[in-house]
């Protein structure tokens, strides 16, 4: 169900090239969990300070010195509000930072990421939260949390992947059938009217754990929400 989206996130045509001298800038490892390919080019020792060239679909989008990039990466990462006003290089950079990709994550780690999204939805208190579970047993440890969310917030909560006839009753939670979700763990919050609060997680179970990504990109969150809505077979 989510395979096209997972493939799209892995391969978004972004390329960073770090021009660095003898000293390792550490930039490639800092982007290891993001959907961007990072390569190195050697600069002569007496040449310029290290810099990074940002490309999208083989086109130059921007370049900036490594020390400026490091400043931007220091938390809290301040994201520009209006993307249209931002120069192309920053646009690609923040898009890269919006998505975190992972491989071979275990259930405990995924629960941690899920908790982040659920906490954010709780703080905002309104909007739509859609979650899919591989089966009923995966939902069971979460029932109390969803009971709390449904009773203490105005969130519109939809759970997919479990037969509504067989689902534990949680007042305020709507069950949707959801086809072909047994390999996926997904959770998406629309931000409750504030795009900057939207976030989502998509993971696919493989033999060695879960592969996938989480994102703060409102457009991608919207796609994940729409994918869940569309898989409701009822």
């Amino acid at each position, binding site marked *: 169900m989510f395979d096209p989206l997972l493939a799209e996130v892995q391969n978004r045509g972004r390329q960073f090239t770090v021009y660095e001298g003898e000293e390792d800038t550490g930039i490639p490892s800092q982007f290891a969990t993001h959907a961007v390919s990072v390569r190195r080019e050697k600069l002569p020792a007496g*040449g*310029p300070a290290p810099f990074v060239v940002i490309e999208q679909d083989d086109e130059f989008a921007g*370049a900036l010195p490594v020390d400026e990039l490091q400043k931007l990466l220091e938390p809290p990462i301040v994201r520009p509000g209006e993307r249209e006003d931002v120069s192309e290089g920053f646009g690609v950079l923040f898009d890269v930072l919006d998505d975190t990709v992972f491989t071979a994550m275990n259930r405990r780690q995924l629960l941690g990421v899920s908790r982040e999204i659920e906490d954010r939805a709780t703080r905002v208190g309104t909007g739509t939260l859609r979650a899919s579970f591989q089966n009923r047993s995966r939902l069971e440890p979460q029932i109390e949390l969803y009971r709390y969310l449904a009773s203490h917030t105005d969130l519109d909560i939809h759970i997919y992947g479990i037969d509504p006839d067989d689902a534990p009753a949680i007042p305020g939670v709507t069950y949707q059938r959801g086809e072909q979700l047994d390999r996926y763990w997904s959770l998406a919050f629309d931000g409750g009217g504030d795009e900057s609060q939207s976030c989502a997680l998509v993971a696919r179970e493989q033999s060695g754990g879960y592969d996938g990504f989480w994102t703060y990109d409102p457009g991608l969150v919207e796609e994940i929400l729409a994918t869940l809505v569309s898989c409701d077979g009822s």
Partner: protein
Amino acid sequence: MTENGLRETQEEEPVGKIHLEDDDLYRALASTRRRRLLYILLVEEESTVQKLATVLTGWGTTETGRMATPEDRRDIITALEHHHLPLLAESDLVTYDRQSGTVALCPVDQAVADLISRSVESEQ
């Protein structure tokens, strides 16, 4: 090294067409952009206008500290194609194929290579 000594060295190992005493060399080195371009070619030997423009754009940001834009890079490409590369080709420092965009450093004396390196490294 005496002036005579230098001449003798060059006569023994003539490399390239441009030498330390040529005025063309100093004209070529009169621009920061050309000095940097030659410096990059000392390492790369052969490159393209596109690649050179990318490195020169990135190099520029290390001084301004701001994000360079595709327009910044396009301006550099224009300056390279219409000004800097024809001048360097005329001085026999590079060969430049307009069709393919390939740029290659001509063979130069070690003394010329050293001068190019020093002229850039002293700015850093």
